[in-house]
């Protein structure tokens, strides 16, 4: 029994690491062999088989910007309400928490359907950066709220007591004590949302669409890196090499956000211990 458990653990542990290296190694090797800086600076042509991904990077950044512009204010105020204002066991808190739970469980393709129905069709935005960004914003919201709420709750109660005994208004307390203290958590929330948005494909195919030119306005369609990988793999015969290279770019971006989260979390903990 002991030997069996031990050997099976080792086999599975090593196999899982090997598969991870196989997936990442394959992408890195094939991409690096064919990589040049012009890939990041050129426009794609012949359906993406040739050329680079410059317009796609621009569209990705624009969609990210739109979704962050919505997620940050809405998420921050929601989190403040949950952590500072609502009575802890009230009905409204229960309803909101349930909603957040449901929202984080909804499959991304259903967000895509919803975004298509409400933003593209009902509000007439069509396939656009705006539709895609807003859809992603709603998707990223639950993660952002939960993270920021935890950060706000980690503000020691003494700070609040002191603020009130000094006669500060709630507004002043939030502005000059709560938010500065919870800032690392807010950053972690932002970076998490960016990671979630970068990885997303299904919600974007029919909200922000497929167009691979540089969008001229927020009402233009634009494809993200992940949609580009999907399109090259499934719809463009001979698009493999560029799909490999785009995957590398996407993975590097996501790993960068993950590393950033780890660094931020560490500084957050240090701060808490120091206080």
């Amino acid at each position, binding site marked *: 029994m002991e030997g069996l458990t031990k050997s099976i653990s080792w086999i599975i542990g090593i196999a*899982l690491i090997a598969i991870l290296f196989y997936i990442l190694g394959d*992408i890195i090797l094939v991409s690096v062999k064919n990589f040049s800086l012009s890939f990041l600076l050129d426009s794609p042509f012949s359906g993406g088989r040739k050329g680079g991904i410059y317009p796609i990077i621009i569209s990705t950044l624009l969609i990210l910007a739109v979704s962050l512009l919505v997620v940050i204010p809405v998420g921050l105020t929601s989190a403040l309400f949950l952590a500072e204002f609502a009575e802890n066991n009230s009905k409204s808190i229960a309803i*909101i928490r349930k909603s957040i739970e449901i929202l984080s469980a909804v499959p*991304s393709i259903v967000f895509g359907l919803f975004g298509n129905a409400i933003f593209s069709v009902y509000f007439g935005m069509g396939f656009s950066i705006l539709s895609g960004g807003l859809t992603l914003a709603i998707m990223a919201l639950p993660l952002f709220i939960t993270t920021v709420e935890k950060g706000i709750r980690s503000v020691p109660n003494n700070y609040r007591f002191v603020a009130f005994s000094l006669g500060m208004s*709630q507004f002043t307390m939030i502005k000059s004590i709560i938010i500065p203290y919870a800032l690392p958590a807010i950053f972690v929330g932002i970076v998490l949302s960016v990671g979630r948005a970068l990885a997303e*494909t*299904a919600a974007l195919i029919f909200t922000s669409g497929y167009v691979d030119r540089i969008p001229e306005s927020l009402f233009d369609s634009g494809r993200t890196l992940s949609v580009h*990988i999907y399109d090259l*793999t499934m719809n463009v015969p001979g698009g493999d090499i560029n799909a490999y290279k785009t995957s590398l770019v996407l993975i590097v971006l*996501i790993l960068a956000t993950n590393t950033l989260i780890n660094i931020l979390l560490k500084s957050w903990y240090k701060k808490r211990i120091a206080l």
Partner: protein
Amino acid sequence: MFQLTRSRQDLYLNVFLKINGYFSFLAVFLIFLFIGKESIVALSGHSTAFIFDKSWFPSEGQFNTVPMIAGTLIVTFGSVILALPLGIISSLFANFYCPPRIKIFYRRAIELYTGIPSVVFGFWGLMKLVPIINEFQPPGQSLLAGILVLALMIFPIITLSLISSFEMASKNHFKVSESLGLKKSTYIWFVLLPSLKGQILGATILSTGRAIGETMAVLMVCGNIVKIPSSVFEPVRTLTANIALEMAYAMGTHRSALFLSGLILLIMIGFLLLLSDTLKKRFAWKD
């Protein structure tokens, strides 16, 4: 929290935050409203068509979603069955068998899995896994490919959740069991795992939800033929893949039938949430 002083500014702030606080509720409400509203066309007239139509032939107005529902259930079930032992054993490896110095790297590696986007998993599956399966049994794009890729995507949820709960639980009783002379494996199989039944169940339900909703990877490796597969080597189409494939050009009843697929997905997820709530009360696990 406290309401000692209240300026006019604070009152406005309160109202403003309260309105924003309900945004998530509004979002959920709108999702159900719009998905429901768009499904009505498919449901009205012949409301049982999505079960009793001959098959899924959008051009002929036939919208039987049963093969896709079956596809989703089979792929989900298969991948969870595979991911559960992978998740449990790899977290055992991390906590009890791998050298302590390596543990942190091992954990980072498992976290890396969760960082790989699903479209990249699908791409890898199509480039590497599908050709291998194709050599055994063509066409390669199959239920098996979907199950394997999906299992790799969801096992980290189980592993990461269990690594931390194993740590907590071991703090409580590992030393005691060692001093009683129990072997490590006896401790694992007869003390640790039974005491964490709830935790394992919770992680499993979470990963089931992820598997049901997964779109891109499944879409890219499963072959997407509308037919209930009779072996693991046959292609299969899930509800999610069906939406992603046809939404771009669907009109009228066809479009509505795709929204109905979305509604069915929502109902499945809702059922899972209910299940998780009931079981959570019974087994008391932490998220």
